């Protein structure tokens, strides 16, 4: 298992080493992650899968610096983020990390354009007009920029969220069940959009999902079970993934 991560060390932008996460103490302690090594390759779409409670969300939270591991290290672009204080972590999120959430997490009082520009506004930077146009072009939001989230469909809202995440050209974009709250048409659209950002923009994406069809667009799928990394598939199709999942749940 341990050398799964090492295999792809070449060109890795995110490397986790021996990551464990324990919640609670004493008898009530639960190990959400146990000694996980992961390496995320730049310019690739990596999916993390696993049954409920397998620790896939915890892994993503730790990789993104939202949660701290009880043991192990996480390096993004050569910095061990587990040692950073709140200010440095904030700066890291600002400069290196993008998020796409299951429930979109758009700010209801801002319109689409303002939501998209928000991370840059927070950082006190101006949007590069050409990059902005390119992102809007990619996400097909040209005619929706003045709409508030409440005036947009779920798929449109998620496209705004992806545009928002892409604006700061993050080192890694984390997508947490990005299609979990969408119908199948919108899901397909979002997955295509994410895929394109990788293929055309060279974006590194880590996506947590429990949907095999979503995971099928990934370059690589990592499987977690009971807090351990148990399997990896490279460029699988949906059937491969369903098969792997069945094996996991059958065991």
């Amino acid at each position, binding site marked *: 298992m341990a050398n799964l991560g090492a295999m792809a060390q070449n060109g890795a932008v995110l490397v986790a080493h021996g990551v464990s996460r324990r919640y609670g103490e004493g008898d009530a302690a639960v190990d959400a992650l146990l000694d996980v090594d992961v390496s995320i390759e730049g310019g690739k779409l990596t999916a993390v899968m696993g049954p409920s409670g397998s620790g896939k969300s915890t892994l993503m939270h730790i990789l993104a610096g*939202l949660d701290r591991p009880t043991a192990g290290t996480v390096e993004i672009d050569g910095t061990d983020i587990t040692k950073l204080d709140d200010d440095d972590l904030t700066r890291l999120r600002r400069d290196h990390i993008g998020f796409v959430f299951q429930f979109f*997490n758009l700010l209801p*009082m801002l319109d689409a354009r303002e939501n998209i520009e928000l991370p840059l506004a927070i950082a006190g930077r101006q949007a590069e007009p050409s990059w902005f146009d390119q992102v809007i072009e990619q996400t097909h939001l040209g005619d929706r920029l003045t709409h508030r989230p409440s005036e947009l469909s779920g798929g449109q809202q998620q496209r705004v969220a992806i545009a928002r995440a892409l604006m700061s050209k993050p080192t890694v974009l984390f997508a947490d069940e990005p299609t979990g709250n969408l119908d199948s048409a919108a899901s397909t659209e979002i997955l295509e959009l994410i895929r394109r950002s990788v293929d055309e923009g060279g974006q590194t994406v880590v996506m947590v999902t429990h949907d095999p069809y979503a995971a099928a667009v990934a370059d690589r799928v990592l499987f977690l079970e009971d807090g351990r990394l148990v399997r990896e598939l490279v460029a699988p199709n949906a059937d491969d993934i369903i098969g792997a999942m069945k094996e996991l749940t059958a065991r």
Partner: protein
Amino acid sequence: MIRFALRGLFTRKLRSVLTAFAIVLGVALVSGTYVLTDSITRAFDSIFQNVYRGTDATIIGRNAIDTNASNAGGGASTPSFDQGLLARVRALPDVKAAIGGVSGEPHLVKNGKAIAFGGAPNLGFSVDPKYPQFSSLKLSRGAWPGPNELVVDTGTASKKSIHVGDTIGVQALGPVKQMRVSGLVKFGSAGSLGGATLAGFDIQTAQALFDKRGKLDDIRVAAHPGVSPQRLVSQIKPILPRDTQVRTGAQQAKKSANATNSFLTFFKTFLLAFAGIALFVGSFVIANSLSITIAQRTREFATLRTLGANRRQILRSVLVEALVVGFLAAVAGLFVGFLLAKGLFSLFDSVGFTLPNSGIVFKSRTAVVAILVGVLVTVAASLRPAVRATRVQPIDAVREGATIPETSTPRRRLIRSAGLTLLGFAALVYGLFAPGLGTGGVLGWMGVGALMIFVGVALLSARWVPSLAQVLGWPAVRIGGAVGRIARENARRNPQRTASTASALMIGLALVTLVAILAAGIISNFKGAVDTLFKGDYVVTAQNNFSLLPRVVGKTVQQTPGLATSASVRGGDAKIFGHVDQLTGVDPTIGQTLALKWKEGSSAVLTSLGQDGAFTDDGYAKKHHLHVGSPVSFETPTGDTLHVVIRGVFKPPAGGSPFGPITVSSALFDRSYQQPQNLFTFINMRGGESAANQAALEQTLKGFPNAKVQNRQKFIDNQISGLKSTLNVLYVLLALSIIVSLFGIVNTLVLSVFERTREIGMLRAVGMTRRQTRRMIRYESVVTALIGTVTGIGLGIVLGALLAARVKNINFTIPVASLIAFIVAAIIVGLLAAIFPARRAARLRPLEALSYE
């Protein structure tokens, strides 16, 4: 980020407006107070400038003691002096013209009734048409007065339909005299002067009327052109007798305005104190509303954090929001306050208290202070919630139902809030009981103490909210069944929120209760004092219950058929042991109408005071180590020093006595005061209280419209009526803070309904009707209001007991009827507060509510 904060504000319009309202009222009170007092000040300044028009110097009598320092019974005016001075002044080389005048307080009587407008004074003075340059009056109809004639201001004339040629009664120190109205006058540009009645007489008539024959109250001097007022004054000075003084006209105008200005300063401080209370309550409402909104926006803040916002940015965004709300609220408050002041002026106008030159004065200071106060209070109140918002973790963006972590344990919080409360009580007790603190010190310590107690109890009260809600919600459960039970549990489930909401109301109710307790204490003591002391049947006082009556009233009463005995109490200022205090003088018959308890000496003292005897009360005796035989000397306003010997020490009841610290015989009193006047005349009638006796007394006093005959009960009622009006004013001012807390409840309920949208949808889906939904919110509101009320009343009782222990004239009494009224009022407040939130809750459609995210 700032744009984000502002956008949030405007998206949550309703919430922002409700929050802002808490500040608007307080700021309105601040700005209204300033506008009102500034305008009144300017009005009075212009009055006095008008009065001293054309006057380069004034000569007035000189009081041997500064009577302005004491408010003990009238006589703040300066003594009159011999009119011979006028001729000597006129003879001075630099004097172009000089005029002597007398003044007094004449009651104009029409159809047997004294004319009075509210509490406005009745001003009377001599006028001399030969010297129009000094006159602030303009003749608008008829002629200037000759002997036994008068001119009246047009305002009074038109209100009471007095016409030139009419004969009306005038009463000052003697019985009513009939005089002819020779003309009508205007004061300055306005018809009247703040509702006062103005009456002008020729000099001899005025001197006779005010019992100042051969005397003058003032001399006004105009200098030749080119002579400075200072030079004029220095020329007059050498010829002045000892009992007079000279000032320039401008100095005198300023001096005269000072008296009203010092009252206005007090009035301003008083109103600002209540504005402060309203703002303090408002800060609770703001802090609470903000912490609720922030809790509801946890995910929003967490998302911002994941997008790279740091803690300072979050803090700033909340504070900017508060800043904007505070600023807008303050501006609105400023405007409302302006309207408030304007409205009050119209109100004054409609009750006859017309102010001359009544332009509204709006100083830039008013705007600066009002806006600063509004913004500062709002921002200060938002600090705690803002710091809480910075504790939101980025990971909360992906967590369902994330809450903001507390930084300290419940135990630590308990210790902190209990400590704050105790510290507050310590400060309060120190302020009350520590010796040697000045008034400012006492009030300062008490204020700080009360503030800390209120904050401390507000923090502590979250602990007893669940049990209190359990008990107070019992009727709701009984009446409302399941709906009542849900309402009660809603009030209990977030104790901190319910406690904070209720605390705003608690402050108002604690203060209202305190005021009610103090008033009840004073009233019951006063009743007790009258019952212990007063053996007579009737008392004669001035119509307003506190002014002095001319001595002749007491003499006239004695002619009443059926009178057994009567005794008057004189009152005046005197300087005793270095302080200006009230000196009282009594007739020898006083012992037949009053029963005093003697500590030293006996009631025989009263009949044998003579020309050198005096008595005092035990408190004053203790303070100055006085015993029977101790010599006491004091100075009267005329400059006489009197030496008396203490003959007795009496023990007054807790409610006080009609006497000043030192009492002498009326014979001695009359010898040492220019115009001795009575505070009270106590009367015993044969046959006691009866309609016939009352009528007989009133018949005797018909010529004195300002004298009022009262039996024992009426006397008590009248004496406490002033206190009751004060009480009502306090209630009205405190009601403002209660209105602010009402908005606090509305705000919390609206936010809670918003937060429980899903839950309410579920309840509606399982069959709760709209009516039941409304009722559920209503019950919760009433339970919250009752929690605040019960806590407030409890705290008010504790504070009242502490204060009663300190102030000797207050007997600690719990005014049960008032407290019940407060509880009823609180229930009404709860019901009112629920109207809007309940309607919103009932409007939610089950399906939409369930799909709400």
